[in-house]
């Protein structure tokens, strides 16, 4: 019954990531895309919250969106996995449903 949650908003501007984490049950996965990728960065005001979400959940960040924004993989929080579009598709098919936190 595992859900893939997607978040496409900056956690510094909107509360979507907050809302998503609060509703993402243990065993689920969160994929950060578009401006949502800023949530995957180390040493920001929201890093601790995202690190905390790793307890019981998987967190992924879309590399193409990360790199577009000038962020290299070494700025990503330890434990958050950088994936490409092909892996995005795999995540969709491997989970039972996709819930977008727009």
């Amino acid at each position: 019954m595992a859900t893939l949650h997607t978040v496409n908003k900056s956690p510094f501007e909107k509360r979507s990531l907050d809302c998503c984490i609060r509703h993402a049950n243990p065993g689920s996965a969160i994929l950060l895309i578009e401006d949502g990728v800023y949530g995957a960065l180390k040493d920001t005001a929201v890093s601790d919250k995202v690190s905390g979400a790793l307890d019981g959940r998987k967190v992924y960040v879309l590399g193409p969106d990360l790199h577009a924004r000038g962020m290299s993989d070494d700025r990503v929080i330890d434990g958050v996995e950088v994936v490409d579009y092909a892996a995005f598709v795999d995540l969709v098919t491997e989970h039972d449903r996709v819930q977008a936190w727009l």
Partner: protein
Amino acid sequence: MAEPWEEDEGPVKKFMYVNRKAPYGTIYALESLEVVLIAAAFDQDVSLAFLDDGVFQLKKGQDTGEIGVKNFSPTYRALEGYDIEKLYVEKESLEVRGLTADDLIVPVEVLSQDELSKLMDEQDVILSF
């Protein structure tokens, strides 16, 4: 119990419409409602969740006369006539916004965040607006 989609009359899926945005500022609330009305004709298992700013969609007493925009809130009261009766509202979202169930235009089931999260994980299809 057999999986519903093993029955002869075709698949019955659990569809949840997740409403997280305030009305009028953007069109999502209205156009989400338009989907729900169409969905009613498909004999699926339909539920609506209102959380975050989506709870504002159900506020009583909406009066759009001064802004020249159509007031679509009476449509929520019509949902029952379409056999759409599962309306869930998140308790925590109401509290943060200073609202109670008495402020809402229709009777709803108020769920805690945990209860709503569990319910979301039982759906086949989640449509987010």
